[in-house]
Structures are given as C-alpha cells and as structure tokens.
C-alpha cells in the first residue's frame, strides 16, 4: 500500500531514519559536555589562540592532521596520553580529522619550543627535510584583527580582558598559529606524569664502545641536528659540545624524559638502547 502513496512513504522513511538518529546521535548529548566528562583544568582559548585556531581551520590543516590520540599502546608512545572527552569542551567545531598525512597534533602543545614552530611553519623542509607539508611563510605577513577577534570571543562566550585584546596589536597570523599549537593538549598535565622514574643507578651499557658512539652520531643527525645544529654548534637548542665531563646517567635522563620547561622533547619512544647510543656520541671528546 505504501508503494502507491508517496506521502505515506515519505513519512515512514522519515520515522525509519529518525530511530537510529535519536539513539546514536541525540542521546549522547546527555553524557557529553556535562559534569560526567568535565575536566576542571581545561580552559577556553585566549584571543590569540582562538585567532590561531581560525587560521588552522582556514588553511584546512585538519585535512592532513588529526587531533585525537587513541588509547592504543603505540599511539600513546608516539603522541602522548590518549584524548579525553572533556578536553574538547570548548572546540566549536571539533578538529579531530580523519587522516594522518602528517602526525596527530592533539598533544603537540609544549613538545617543541616556539622557535621550532616558527621555523617549521616558515619552511617545513628546514626542520624535517623529507616532509610533504606546504610552507606557510605567508602567515607572517597577515596581521590578526583585534576587533574581529574580540567579536569572536563574544560569540563563543570565552572570557578575555581588554589587555588581551590590546596585546593582539601587531601580532601576525603566524604568532597566533604558534600560540594555538602550543595550547593543544595542555588542558591536562600529562607531560610530567609521563616522565619515566629512574629506579636505582643508571649504568651506561656502552661506555667506551666506539661503535655505539657511531650509531649515536647517525641518530643525532636524524633526531637532534635540526635543533642543535649539524656540528652540535647549537641553533634553536643550545650547543652540545664540551659535554665530555657530564654524568652519563644525567644526560640519559634529559634525553629520555626531555626538559618540558626548556622546550626539549622527550625521546623515550626511541627506547633505552638508542638513547644510550646518543649519550655515548655526545660524551665523546671532540
């Protein structure tokens, strides 16, 4: 009978599609962004970060970068603590993405110092030689509009002060982008908690082993040279010559856990062996 009645078919089809819709799409609103998943330390974006987020959207960064770390072993090792619902409460829209042409960015905040991002966004190949990311140097020429940003903050109902808006004067879209990236994933204090605690005394398994130092040298070129220079002369990071007198265990800990406050990333995901090889390379007399 519905085969002869178009209006009835329309009504039945609408009801049919609404069943799954209500259960899987409407019902979750009762759990998400409520007290059940709230995280107190997560704060809204400040004006500069919000301006940066809008540049990220405009340039379609989400077409290549995801922003959710899944609770899978290798994913947590590679990117950091897995993502929690409450961390995204201020994300309108969400930017989780669906493809990782480049790495996930949910935990990028605090991984590198600002200077790394400025150089990388200006010319990605300068920091990551074989990357396929486009250069975004033009962001340095575009200024953030303070009034427009204030209006956006009002629309979203995010708190700000007049000083925040004043501080936008003269800021470029590049400044905004870097500020946004440094905010990502910092709503919870996961970086400190991820540090490995050292139990007992650290013993260098390769002391005096020249082949370990050679292996360390090639690791250095791959992982360290873009910040500390090809000849360890220093660039974004400090120069790394004359370390010969340093304690093996102390150096190992710095490499393994990083110095989050100094902008030095942790290299624990390389594993202990490779980090000891790096230690032996760095402790070599030049």
């Amino acid at each position, binding site marked *: 009978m519905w085969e002869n009645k178009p209006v009835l078919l329309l009504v039945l089809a609408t009801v049919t599609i609404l069943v799954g819709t209500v259960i899987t799409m409407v019902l979750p609103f009762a759990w998400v962004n409520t007290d059940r998943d709230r995280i107190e330390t997560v704060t809204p974006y400040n004006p500069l970060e919000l301006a940066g987020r809008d540049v990220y959207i405009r*340039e*379609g960064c989400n077409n290549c970068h995801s922003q959710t770390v899944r609770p899978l072993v290798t994913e947590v090792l590679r990117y950091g603590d897995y993502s929690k*619902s409450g961390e995204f409460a201020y994300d*309108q829209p969400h930017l989780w993405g669906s*493809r990782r042409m*480049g*790495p996930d960015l949910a935990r990028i905040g605090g991984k590198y110092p600002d200077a790394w991002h400025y150089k990388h966004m200006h010319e990605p190949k300068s920091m990551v030689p074989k990357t396929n990311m486009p250069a975004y140097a033009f962001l340095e020429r575009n200024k953030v509009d303070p009034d427009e940003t204030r209006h956006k903050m009002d629309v979203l109902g995010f708190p700000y002060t007049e000083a925040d808006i004043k501080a936008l004067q003269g800021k470029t879209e590049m400044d905004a982008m870097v500020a946004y990236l440094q905010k990502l994933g910092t709503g919870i204090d996961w970086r400190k908690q991820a540090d490995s605690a050292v139990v007992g005394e650290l013993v260098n398994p390769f002391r005096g082993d020249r082949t370990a130092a050679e292996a360390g040298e090639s690791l250095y070129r791959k992982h360290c040279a873009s910040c500390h220079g090809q000849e360890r002369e220093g660039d974004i990071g400090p120069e790394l010559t004359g370390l010969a007198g340093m304690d093996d265990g102390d150096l190992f800990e710095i490499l393994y856990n990083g110095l989050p406050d100094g902008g030095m990333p942790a290299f624990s995901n390389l594993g202990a062996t490779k980090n000891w090889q790096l230690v032996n390379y760095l402790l070599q007399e030049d």
Partner: protein
Amino acid sequence: METPAYDYRIVRGFVVWSIIWGLVAVLVGVLISFQLCDPDLNLPPFLTYGRLRPLHTNAGIFGWGIGSFFALFFFMVQRLCRTSLWSPGLARFQLWFFNATIIAAAITLLLGYNTSKEYHELEWPVDIMVVILWVIFAINIIMTIIKRREEQMYISLWYMLACLVGVAVLYLVNAAEIPVSLFKSYSAYAGTNDANVQWWFGHNAVAMVLTAPPLAVFYYFLPKSTGVPIYSHRMSIIAFWSLIFMYLWTGAHHLLWTPVPDWVQTLAMAFSVMLIAPSWGSVFNGYLSMQGEWQQMKSNYLVKFLILGITFYGLQTLQGPLQSIRSFSAFIHYTDWVPGHVHMGTMGWVSLVLFAAIYYLAPYLFGRKVYSIGLANLHFWLVLIGQIIYSISMWIAGVQQAGMWHATNSDGSLTYTFMETLVEMYPYYWVRAFSGIIYLAGVVVFLYNLYMTAKKGEPAEQLAQQAN
C-alpha cells in the same frame, strides 16, 4: 496511450554541467595527488592541499554526483510516472542556481572560507544556497510523483524519496552554526558532540547521496539496458527498508577509539556489520537479474558499466563493515587505506553507474545514437584500470604505514618515527597520482565521445520520441 510531453532539455542541461564539474573534480584530484608527492607544487595561499582538497570533494560529490542525480531523477521521475515535470520553470531555475552554488562553493573554498567539517565545508551563506536548491528540487520531484499517471511507484522512486528527506534532515542538523561574520561561523555543537553529529552526517551523506540515488539509477537503468526486469521485487522491498533503517546507526564507526561514548561506537560497529545484508540484497538482485543474460557483458557496453558498478558496491559494502570493526579500525584508520576505500565507491560504484546512465540517455538528450561504442569501451577500461590502481596502491600503502606505526622494538619502544613511515609512502603516492591521470584520460574520452555524439552521431529520432 498518448505520450506525455517529457522534458529532456532540463535533463541535458544537468548532464552537461555535472560532467563539467566532474572534470574539475578529477583535475583537482590529480593536482593534489601530485602535491602529496612534492610539496613545492603547493602555491600558497590559494592553491595549497588544505584548501584544494575540500574543492576536490565538493566538486566531485556536489558537482558531478548530485548534478548527475538531478538530471537522472528528472528523467526517471517523468518516465516512471508517465507524466511531464510538475514545474519545468522551477527546474530550469534550479539548473542556474545549481551552477551559481557550485561556483560560489569553489570561490569561497579557495579563499579559505570553510567550516572544517568533512563533506560539509561550505560556510553558512553557501549552505543556505544548498538548502534552497534542495527544497525546490524536492518539491518538483514530489509534486511530479503526486500527479503521476502510473499507479505503482517503482523501486527507483522509493530510493529517490528517501534521498530527498534523508539529505534534508542530515544537512539541516549538521549545518547548525552561529554566524560570526559574512563568511565565518562556529558550529553550534562542541567537541565530542560536534564530532558525533558530524560523522552521523558524514556517513549518512554516503547513504543518502552516494548509495540511495545510484541504487535508484541502477534499478532503473539495468532493466532498461538488458531488457529484462529486476529479479525480485520482494527482495528490493526488504533491502530498501532495512538499508535506510540501519545506516543511521553507523556514523560513529568513523570515531572508533575516540572519546565518543563506547556504547555509541559499539552500536555503530554492530549495525555496520549488519548493513552487509541490505547492501548485498541489492547486489544479488542485480546479479540474479542477469540470469541467462550474462552474454550481454560482452555484447552490451552499458551492462559492463552497470555490473562492474554494482560489483564495486558489493566490495565497498564488505570492506566498509570490515573497517568498522574496532580491532581493524585501530590498525588502518588514519592511513591511506581509507582514501583507497572511498575512491572505490566514488570512482568505481557511483561513477560507473552514472556513466552508463548518461550513455543510455544520450539519444534522448541529443537525438543521436552514441558516436562510438569503441570509445565507450576505451573509456570503460581506462576508468576501471585507473580506479583499480588507485585503490590497490592505497590499500597496500595503508597496510604498510599501519604496520610501521604500530611496530615496536623488544624494549617496548617505537621502531619508526613518523617521518620514516611517510618516506615509505612516496612511491605509492606517485603510483596513485599516475592512476589519477589514467582515470582522467578515461573521463576525457567520455567527454569527447559525448561531444561527437551531439555533433555527428547517427540520428535517432524515433528513439527519442518513444514512450516508456
């Protein structure tokens, strides 16, 4: 019985423009596939991958896909209802407004005005244009069906009606946004809710735009091309209702392992696997309709397009549920496996069926027989080979990259850095880019064949006049 005054002019208009937008989609697709091989091919700020990729998907889905469905719906609704269009004037306005919308979409996307939501990137003013377009289209189709002179509504009309209402609900809910300025808005939903709404939309856009309409086309044009009816009417009824019921539960399979509540993910996974049944209901209905007629795969090029099309639909609807299983998703999600999957659906299933329908229509639209069957066959093989190379290279790439992402050393550390895995992808990216050129060549042959049909094809006066 007297032949109604069918309006084929409007069908022709939509066919021509949808092919033009389809060519744009493929050209941009080829460009961005090369950009992934060599970043120096990005020309900031307007021609970067990040801005061009939405243009590629929008031109493909809205320009080529929906443009062709407009054409084919207008053709099918008249023939199946044995009546002329309710309002030819409205349809003509729709054609102009459709092109205006696609042009507005292309310009705003290149300028960086986008909402960031996949397959729903258009900012609110263009969103409103899309809504107007859909409303006038829906009114015209529904009113034509209401004034029909054929008692029974054929299968294709059910899928068309479901598409009309489904797209309307999906688009309006996902479009809820707060305007900030003329070309900037913020989503009305936040974070995890926004993601769940978006993929409820995203996956069901696949159902309502890339499944229901091509099925309507398939159910109409397969019997028309072979001369034998669909195998089972009852099976098509079961397949139709279960398909539109189950699809709406599955959006969160795009969000497995994310902060979306676990039970939503589990439901999505279960319903995705269940969807194999209604999907294959249509596949079997197609295959079984060929009983005793398989020699037409050799003698009838239209059948070749349609049967390969439904075969890719069958493969797509097996691979999709596989990807929706948590453990498999953990492995391949975020890799190039997914574009391989998507392009089997778009370049294989949807486009092959559309090509067949357009060849079938050519005599009605141009009053001439298709210029060259040989060229149509060449077109078939080029797009088939291009698509197969595309998908297979991306599946291999995806498995390799997933394997490298998840590899660990004996001490529990990661074996590869992210860049080490990307570097391994470049050879596959080159293969994919060249497969795009092969596909593009097929599309150019198609265009040439249609152009020559319009100019030099053998007159087919009677055919164009012939009633249903």
